[in-house]
């Protein structure tokens, strides 16, 4: 594996399977009374969040702490960044403090690439602009594997699994990372969105493209709904939230078109009543809460593998 995790594109099939298998081993930690391993003791993980994202930040924080790393949370608000400090100077500051890993969330696509040029530690992309969110894709892959193949399974990829991803693909970093990662694992991915919310050259991506959710649902083992920001409406991406819901929202009637074992995913935060109806989000098919729990486990695996912690005690084979 690379020193950094910046794009799902950087991961080979073996890399991904290794991360998922490591996560599977680490999953047992969450079930223990003392949810902590000593593997990253003495290592420092900085959560560098230029964008508000409490969910992702606490997920990384929990992951690092369960591995006994020291965690420093750096939020851009009210910090030197708000006073005009550049990303480079922030990076040099963290470098001077001896960060072993920097988890970065930033509104600019490519910010983690830039950061990786300025720090010695590992850079983990926790979402950059409209580019990527690779740990989200990893936790989604982990969730799919656990649901479809069973808990405790290792060594397997996702060959032949049919995944439909519906929502704002153009601005969606989750869609981009999932297309790359899931196709690496052998899944057949289809993107569904209004044409305005698809990148112009989406035809060159390793996935299918459709504008019609209804026709894709019966062919899906997994349907993943992405958040649609209501402000997109003002830029004429779609006429109204009502129309979006009518054409691309997943409600109970649409969910009934899915095969019996198909699952419904959402990376959160949800717009209940827009891209996903409440009774769908709360149905037994929904993996939304599991995804949150799996997020911590998968991020533990990523930090563990990147920082090359000590052998996993008790969970090594």
């Amino acid at each position: 594996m690379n020193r950094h995790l910046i794009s799902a594109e950087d991961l080979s099939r073996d890399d991904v399977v290794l991360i998922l298998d490591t996560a599977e081993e680490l999953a047992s930690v969450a079930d223990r009374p003392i949810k902590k391993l000593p593997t990253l003791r003495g290592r420092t993980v900085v959560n560098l969040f230029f964008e508000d994202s409490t969910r992702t930040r606490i997920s990384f924080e929990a992951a690092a702490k369960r591995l006994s790393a020291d965690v420093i949370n750096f939020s851009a608000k009210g910090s030197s960044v708000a006073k005009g400090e550049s990303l480079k100077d922030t990076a040099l500051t963290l470098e001077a403090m001896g960060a072993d890993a920097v988890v970065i969330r930033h509104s600019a696509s490519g910010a983690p690439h830039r950061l990786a040029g300025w720090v010695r530690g590992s850079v983990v992309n926790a979402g950059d602009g409209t580019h990527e969110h690779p740990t989200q894709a990893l936790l989604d892959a982990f969730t799919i594997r656990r649901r479809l193949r069973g808990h405790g399974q290792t060594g397997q990829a996702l060959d032949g699994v049919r995944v439909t991803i519906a929502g704002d693909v153009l601005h969606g970093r989750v869609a981009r990372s999932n297309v790359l990662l899931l196709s690496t694992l052998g899944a057949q991915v289809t993107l569904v969105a209004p044409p305005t919310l698809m990148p112009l050259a989406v035809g060159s991506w390793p996935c299918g493209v459709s504008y019609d959710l209804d026709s894709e649902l019966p062919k899906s083992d997994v349907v993943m709904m992405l958040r649609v920001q209501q402000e997109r409406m003002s830029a004429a991406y779609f006429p109204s939230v009502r129309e979006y819901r009518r054409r691309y929202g997943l409600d109970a009637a649409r969910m009934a078109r899915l095969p019996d074992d198909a699952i419904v995913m959402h990376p959160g935060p949800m717009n209940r009543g827009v891209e996903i109806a409440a009774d769908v989000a709360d149905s037994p098919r929904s993996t939304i809460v599991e995804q949150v729990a799996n997020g911590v486990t998968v991020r533990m695996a990523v930090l563990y593998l990147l920082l090359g912690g000590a052998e996993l005690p008790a969970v090594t084979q």
Partner: protein
Amino acid sequence: MSAASWLIRGATLAGGDPGDIAVSGGVITEIGAHLDAHGAQVLDADGLIALPGLVDLHTHLREPGREDAETVETGTAAAALGGYTAVHAMANTEPVADTAGVVEQVWRLGKAAGHADVQPVGAVTVGLNGQHLAELGAMADSAAHVRVFSDDGKCVADPLLMRRALEYVKAFNGVIAQHAQDPRLTEGAQLNEGEMSGRLGLAGWPAVAEEGIVARDCLLAAHVGSALHICHVSTAGSVEIIRWAKSKGWPVTAEVTPHHLLLTDELAAGYDPVFKVNPPLRTGADVTELRQALADGTIDAVATDHAPHPVEAKETEWAEAAWGMTGLETALRVVHQAMVKTGLLDWQGVADRMSYRPARIGRLTHHGTPPVAGAAANLTLYDPAAPAEAVSPSGASKSRNTPFAGMELPGRVVATFLRGTPTVLDGKLIRA
């Protein structure tokens, strides 16, 4: 060094036969074989090509206002090192060159620097705001004698204002140089809209945003019978429209930058903003078409769009970074690589696209003239056989944002003469 007499021995005149060029009193006095030195300083130019001094239609010298990025002094030094004897200084300074006062200031700074002639470009609209016409006549009548007007950096997007500007400058043989970019179609745009922008998650700058304005302005120029110049053409579609407009005999000219002749949007893959430029780097297919258009004359000129920026403006996230790249010192070598080595243009063609035609478009009378006896001695001596060397900033420009850094380019500018006086000898700047 005074404008003494020089005898340039054995240079090849833009692809012709080797010969000697005698220079005295600022003009070429004689061209021929085995001329007598008559006490003049002799420059051995064996194997070198003598080109008419290069003329740049599109230079950002940044002064007044952004002297941290470039000054007239440092920018023209870089120009001389690149073989240029005249540059057009774009109007997007701080304050904007939208009054006779500012253009005269830039013109005077150019005179004082002495490395190359500086011809100021005037803004089309006050403050480049696209609202009210600047006092174009006052700038034309000023000591700076402005003939090219441009809001470069911004598009004159309002069709009525563009029409009026085109019409108005007819009174003094002016030309409007348009930065073709539909502002609505490029809100937040970062990179050519296509496979790369989709992959990198950078907001797309679609080709149609340029082509729509190019088409509109060609039609306007035809309608009012006034001269239009298209800055930094970057797409195959724009080429097609300009070719069509020219086939109609319409008064349209166009330029292309060296970087659009050599680089593509694939270079953005690492998010290094040194490759961030406006209009953005396009695809390989666009590059091919631009080269062809420059070769067949559809595109008239190479113009650098030399856009210096301080280090901190580029050491950022892509979206935060400033637009633009330097280009004066590398332009001729890039054209050598992209056009001459590919067989698309000979050295006579290079002289035409980098000196004759840009001087004509810029209404410069003392530049861009063929090197014949009696003509102003503006000359560039270029060594086409110099081994390809990796580009590194020379330090002449205040800025180092060259996209060609580390790239091997052929050739070397050996000497530049401005009215008979060397500004560069042996590839080094001669301090006046």
